[in-house]
């Protein structure tokens, strides 16, 4: 600001010294240039502040400012920084008008930086006063996630509490899930018809909880197929899932005392290409004509292709997925569908293991807490907007 005032005074002094009589043309030109300059004079942004970006791994500084009063006529703002020990400012970014913040994501932790912001109009740049000195650093705790930590702790406590109660023999009610009750019937049907059972543990990887849930159900289904001596076919899209699925089926056959009945060739890897896998499964369905198809895990666009092909072969179909977009397709094309969390509950439901049922109960209470919080928040929001409160 002081610099600008000095410049204006200097220019006025020069103007005064030019003689009107001797150099009329020069004085007029100077006056015109001076007035044009005044008409384009723009104010810089003010109140530039800089601070270390919170809850990050370092290497980042936030900068904010109050926009220029001439903001509507500007092209934008150029942000430049001065590192400690550096000779001059270096430009680090440009953002459009009306914006009043910027994040410098290329800082070195421990080095002090100072920022300034220039209002830019064509070739004119008017700089703000420099900001405070600031340095970036890594944080040891993400304070934004305290709420998640609190709820997760409460949830873990509920699950452990009900698990311990189940261990002590507390009887736990679990509602009927039609899709899971049908598992026994579906395996029995395949046995009577002398046809195989097709089981697909989704198309995702082991990193997906739905895949793990699908493999848990596979263990229970494989026990039944081992007891009834029914053939099971488990094609896989992911090599790691294939390895685990093979072990799960083998272990289930061993657990029911039929290790000899396990056919290693029944669990196999097909391909990791999504639609090639769908084509292979369609081929298995039309060639082998399985009496029952299970689709348990995570699916994408191929869900309808395989479920419709299965429906056309006349098989009983039980699907379970947490892929919300694919659920309508499964509901349409399959006889039974485990919707969302029912997939995770399936393992406890089928095995009736008290510990698993206890965890399921804890999960239900966790959901009750969420519903309670949602209702309370909705109620508070409604009350806060009551017209009568505006009177106070």
């Amino acid at each position, binding site marked *: 600001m002081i610099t600008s005032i000095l410049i204006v005074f200097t220019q006025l002094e020069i103007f005064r010294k030019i003689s009107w009589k001797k150099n009329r043309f020069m004085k007029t030109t100077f006056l015109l240039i001076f007035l044009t300059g005044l008409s384009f004079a723009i104010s810089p942004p003010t109140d530039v502040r800089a601070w270390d970006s919170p809850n990050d791994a370092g290497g980042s500084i936030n900068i904010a400012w109050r926009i220029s009063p001439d903001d509507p006529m500007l092209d934008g703002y150029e942000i430049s920084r001065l590192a400690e020990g550096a000779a001059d400012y270096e430009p680090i970014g440009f953002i459009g008008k009306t914006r009043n913040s910027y994040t410098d994501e290329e800082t070195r932790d421990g080095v002090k930086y100072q920022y300034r912001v220039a209002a830019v109009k064509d070739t004119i740049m008017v700089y703000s006063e420099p900001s405070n000195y600031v340095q970036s650093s890594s944080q040891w705790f993400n304070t934004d996630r305290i709420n998640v930590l609190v709820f997760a702790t409460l949830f873990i406590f509920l699950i452990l509490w009900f698990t311990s109660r189940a261990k002590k023999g507390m009887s736990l009610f679990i509602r009927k899930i039609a899709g899971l009750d049908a598992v026994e019937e579906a395996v029995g049907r395949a046995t009577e018809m002398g046809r195989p059972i097709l089981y697909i543990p989704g198309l995702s990887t082991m990193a997906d909880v739905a895949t793990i*849930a699908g493999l848990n*159900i596979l263990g229970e289904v494989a026990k039944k197929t081992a007891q009834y001596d029914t053939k099971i076919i488990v094609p896989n899209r992911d090599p790691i899932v294939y390895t685990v699925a093979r072990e*799960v089926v083998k*272990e289930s056959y061993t657990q029911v005392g039929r290790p000899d009945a396990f056919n290693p060739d029944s669990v196999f890897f097909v391909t990791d290409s999504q*639609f090639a896998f769908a084509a292979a499964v369609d081929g298995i369905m039309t060639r082998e004509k399985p009496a029952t198809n299970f689709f348990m895990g995570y699916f994408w666009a191929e869900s309808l292709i395989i479920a419709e092909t299965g429906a056309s072969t006349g098989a009983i179909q039980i699907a379970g997925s947490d892929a919300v977009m694919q659920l309508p397709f499964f509901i349409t094309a399959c006889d039974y569908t485990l919707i969302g969390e029912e997939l995770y509950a399936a393992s406890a439901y089928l095995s009736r*293991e008290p510990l698993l049922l206890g965890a399921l109960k804890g999960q239900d209470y966790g959901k009750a807490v969420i519903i309670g919080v949602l209702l309370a928040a909705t109620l508070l929001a409604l009350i806060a907007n009551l017209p009568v409160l505006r009177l106070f």
Partner: protein
Amino acid sequence: MKRRIPLAIVFIFGVLGAIPFLIPHRIIQNADNEFRSSILRIIVAFSLVLGVGSIIRHHFQKIRRKKENWQYSYITLIALVISAIIGLFGGIDARGMLPTQFTVPFTEYVFRFDIQTLYTNIMVPLAATMFSLLAFFMTSAAYRAFRARNVEATILLLSAFVVMLAAVPLVSSFFPKLSAFSEWILTVPNTAAKRGLLFGIALGSMATSLKIILGIERGWLGGTS
């Protein structure tokens, strides 16, 4: 011991996996990235060997036992070997040791058969063909779903009718309120149902992870004992 070691590994890595979510410090984040980008890749590479072994074993069995359509297994195995040779020695885009392109005699046409060309000209059209089948499957599924058998099915039918009709430009230009109603169906009841499902899924997924980390759920190990 056969169970204890996998359970211990799952417990340690399950707990370690949750830490980077709460601690943003560079040391923790770098260690997490290193684990995900390097160690997991090595494990996946090893598992791929198992996968290829499974394919070869499965199709050899089929050929040996002369199962139905066993002839196609030859195609699979030959395609596997050829693409492996081209991929390993020919490079991705004809820049490997193996010559994967030549000029057709008496023409200027360059014939390429590197992995990228095979992928673009075989895999992509085949996948697109399978994907396009969805249109027909959707029609047949919609035919079954949109039958007014009970109250719920009738509501579904009417909602679908409104949403589909509003998507037709001519109809929506004549009846702008229909578009607004369709928008309301999608953004209010549809989103509400979806969010309800997502709450359940998030909790279920968290509970399942916890059960696995604590060793309560052992189905993935092949049993509960």
